[in-house]
């Protein structure tokens, strides 16, 4: 296992190269745009600007403004348009600049995209991909820092991916685009420069397959998105304290790889869920409830949650830093849970 501090999790592939998560997303889009003429990207400032995070740089140059479209500031409209295109043979990728703006597309996603296949008795389908962000500590304050993945994961008919590494981000995004269902992909905006190895050759990753990012014996840290790095850093620290932590990354919240998660806790007997959404009624609650139910007879201690405080994200750095789980807070939680002084 690598040192988490490099933020690179090597994979055991022949012929790998190191790229950033932004690049991984860019490559996934470019490859799928190249592969399937039905794929297009629509969003605000996605073309020449390549998004404010510069994640899409170069795409409009290669694929032209008819396949990489700058849209008006109309999140609901763009998503609805993407859905209609998806229902009629295309594979749109809708870019919602900040995850905080999913507030504006909940009707299009939850009432429309998620339900179209079911309501039509299977006759219509909506192969729509929505890319958006999550994550705080960017000093962007309450309306540009939220991690709202729990809302989407609560809607049957949607799939939800929360990749943590360039490898996962690329592989899952490609699969999302090819999937015949609406998939919402959340990328932590603080992670775009995070580096990691990806294979040189093309690959995809299945939705619904968790990965053990680090093996351990004493406690399982189930961590999502950038919290995987927090968990890995905590695990490194725990190792120094004589505690062996396993880090499990669900990679997709829907479908959820319950077997891998529960299996890990059945082995370790202890679990902490680390997620950057607000604690109450968040994704961490589902993961904790699942573990508490399915691994009940193996648990040596209650399942703990490390999640964002139940407060709007404040601007001031000294306040914002209090709101998110850190390697230190997870370390302390784990130490207490395992009962080592």
């Amino acid at each position, binding site marked *: 296992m690598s040192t988490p501090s490099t933020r690179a999790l090597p994979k055991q592939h022949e012929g790998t190269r190191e790229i950033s998560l932004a690049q991984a997303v860019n490559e996934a889009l470019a490859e799928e745009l190249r592969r399937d003429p*039905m794929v*297009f990207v629509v969003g605000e400032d996605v073309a020449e600007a390549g998004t404010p995070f510069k994640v899409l740089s170069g795409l409009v140059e290669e694929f032209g403004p*008819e396949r990489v479209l700058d*849209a*008006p500031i*109309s999140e*609901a*409209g*763009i*998503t*609805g*348009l*993407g*859905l*209609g*295109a*998806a*229902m*009629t*043979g*295309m594979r*749109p990728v809708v870019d919602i600049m900040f995850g905080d703006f999913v507030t504006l597309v909940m*009707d*299009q996603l939850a*009432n*429309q995209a998620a339900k*179209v*296949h*079911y*309501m*039509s*008795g*299977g*006759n*219509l*389908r909506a*192969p729509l991909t929505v890319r958006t962000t999550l994550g705080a500590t960017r000093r962007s304050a309450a309306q540009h820092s939220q991690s709202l993945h729990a809302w989407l994961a609560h809607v*049957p*008919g949607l*799939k939800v991916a929360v990749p943590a590494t360039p490898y996962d981000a690329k592989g899952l995004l490609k699969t999302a685009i090819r999937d*015949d*269902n609406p998939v919402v992909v959340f990328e932590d905006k603080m992670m775009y420069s995070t580096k990691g190895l990806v294979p040189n050759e093309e690959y995809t990753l299945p939705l619904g397959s968790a990965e053990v990012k680090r093996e351990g014996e004493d406690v399982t840290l189930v961590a999502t998105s950038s919290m995987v790095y927090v968990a890995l850093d905590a695990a490194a620290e725990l190792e120094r304290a004589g505690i062996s932590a396993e880090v499990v990354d669900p990679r997709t919240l829907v479908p959820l790889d319950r077997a891998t998660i529960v299996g890990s806790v059945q082995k370790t007997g202890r679990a902490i869920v680390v997620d950057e959404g607000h604690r109450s009624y968040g994704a961490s609650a589902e993961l904790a409830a699942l573990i508490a139910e399915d691994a009940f007879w193996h648990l040596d201690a209650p399942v703990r949650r490390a999640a964002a405080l139940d407060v709007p994200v404040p601007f001031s750095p000294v306040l914002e830093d209090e709101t998110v789980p850190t390697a230190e807070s997870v370390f302390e939680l784990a130490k207490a849970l395992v009962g080592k002084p």
Partner: protein
Amino acid sequence: MATEPTTTPQTLTSELALQMYEQMRRIRSFEERVNDLYRSAKMPGLAHLYIGEEAVAVGVCSALHRDDYITSTHRGHGHCLAKGASIERMFCELLGKEAGYCHGKGGSMHIADHEHGNLGANAIVGGSTGIATGAAFSAKSRRTGQVAVCFFGEGALGQGVLYEVMNMASLWQLPVIYVCEQNFYNEYTHYSETTAGEVAARPAAFGIPEEEVDGQDVRAVFDAACRAVERARSGGGPAFLTCATYRFHGHHVGDIDRGYYRSKDEEEQWRRRDPVEILAAWLVDRGIADRSKLERVDENLAAEIAAAADAALEAPYPDPREVNEHVYA
């Protein structure tokens, strides 16, 4: 089917006029039966009857190809039939039966008929405006020459998303026709209490050509629709038709006492402008059909409807285990 021309007719032939009559009558009779089914507690949930508004759906859909798209509303039976759906599968859907268009999963407010380009009724007011606009985007991108028609009531003028997508339709010159079914009521509230300014100014604000049409005159609707469809198909961009019409019944089948929101007098005045009668009179006047011929059409339809309803009532419900199917494709 009368409603499946394979090329857009540009002129109203006698044959087409007769087909339109039959189609309007079919919708009328279908819905009268729906009302009966509800009143006799044989139909679950609610239904929003289209009776009185038939000329809009039939006039517009007669200008469409089979593979053109439509999106529909909570008041969607007329659109669905006019686009070519089978009566029996519709009855089955309204009754929650396995043989319904959506295997009973959609019901009245969600019937979709992908075989005829009907992308679905929608129970969110304004909820299908994005879908229709996206279908038009798709048609343009795929260069198929298809158009998309977005039906909605004037109540949808209250939904912001309509303006968001009209803006894009205009910017990108998408082949979408917004058909506003102006029946003057948002549920139990007169539209003048909910709608500032002129309806026509709304699409105009986005540079979309607008036309006001007598929605009780199927020939007028057809003409306007043909113009809009032709322009859209040939790359001329979106259009907006405001069709003035009236729902003869309540907002839904259970809305019987309407006195508090609209007068009997108003209802009667509109009933005098029955779209089926207006076309019938014209057909007779023009010598295209005589009354007895039309009566025969009506009788045949009555029989067709009765048989379809009976079959649907007899049809089996889905297996309860199907509840878990079709969540994901």
